[in-house]
């Protein structure tokens, strides 16, 4: 028996298929979830994928946050279920306040698509156990609202408690405070990041790297040994 990992499709989700593929390539069972459905179909973990849910109108993630499926995700996340928010999924997580802070338009105002170097600062979360703390990885980054912001107190607290999980290396691509690319909640089960690990799981496509596969193998190991 392998783990069941759900991927939510909101109207306007784009990288949902890719997340499902990454789950499959890691050896877990991918389960598509629908935004209108409160039922999570007994999945063991949930991925909120990238894209432009509701066109990113109003603010990225602001409308999806109210989807029925999110009621259950919020509840289950509180009970410890692992949740990963990638890009738009991260934006949804900040809008729901499952993660602190907010996302703003990139400081250069452009959409940016590039291969991004990151440091995995915390290998203790549900989604990063297969990396070593301090390890550098390269995965694609692609967004226009990727500038992470929070007040100083929150930032200090994130730093102090090891909840800054990923940091940009070789140049901050969007003006994110303290070079933050991704963070976790206090319990470490909810993780959000702007770059896209699900686009770095096959050598043949994308940037030709597989540095992102570790996200999905990490969670799989966690779930089947749990």
């Amino acid at each position, binding site marked *: 028996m392998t783990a069941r990992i759900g991927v939510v499709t909101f109207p306007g989700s784009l990288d949902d298929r890719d997340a499902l593929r990454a789950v499959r390539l890691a050896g877990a069972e991918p389960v598509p979830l629908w935004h209108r459905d409160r039922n999570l179909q007994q999945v063991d973990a949930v991925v909120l994928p990238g894209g432009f849910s*509701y*066109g990113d*109108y*109003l603010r990225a993630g602001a*409308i999806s946050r*109210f989807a029925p499926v999110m009621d259950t995700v919020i509840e289950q996340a509180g009970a410890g279920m692992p949740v990963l928010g990638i890009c738009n999924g991260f934006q949804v997580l900040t809008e729901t306040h499952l993660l602190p802070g907010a996302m703003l338009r990139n400081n250069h105002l452009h959409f940016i698509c590039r291969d991004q170097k990151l440091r995995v600062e915390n290998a203790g979360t549900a989604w990063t156990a297969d990396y070593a703390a301090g390890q550098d990885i390269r995965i694609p980054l692609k967004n226009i609202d990727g500038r992470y912001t929070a007040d100083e107190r929150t930032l200090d607290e994130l730093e102090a408690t090891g909840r800054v999980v990923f940091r940009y290396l070789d140049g901050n691509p969007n003006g994110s405070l303290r070079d933050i690319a991704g963070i976790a909640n206090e319990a470490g089960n909810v993780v959000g990041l702007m770059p896209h690990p699900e686009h770095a799981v096959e050598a043949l496509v994308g940037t030709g790297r597989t540095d992102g596969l570790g996200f999905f193998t990490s969670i799989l190991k966690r779930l089947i040994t749990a």
Partner: protein
Amino acid sequence: MARVVVDVMLKPEILDPQGQAVQRALPRLGFAGIADVRQGKRFELELEGPVDDAALAQINTMAETFLANTVIEDFTVRVEEVADRGEAK
């Protein structure tokens, strides 16, 4: 310092996908009675000098040629009292 506000809104006949998305979401969030939502841009300009006719004429030109594309947008220019913004009570 004086503040001039330029509001830029899509012309009424032009589709406003953002406003539409907001409006469609409202009933789901439990807000009723909103017949229409339009979303536009608000520019707050802080002037170095006084807000006289010359300054306003300049800002009007700026709005017309730069801040708005009058093919699809309308704009208004107005002087605003500068007060501390906070949440409306």
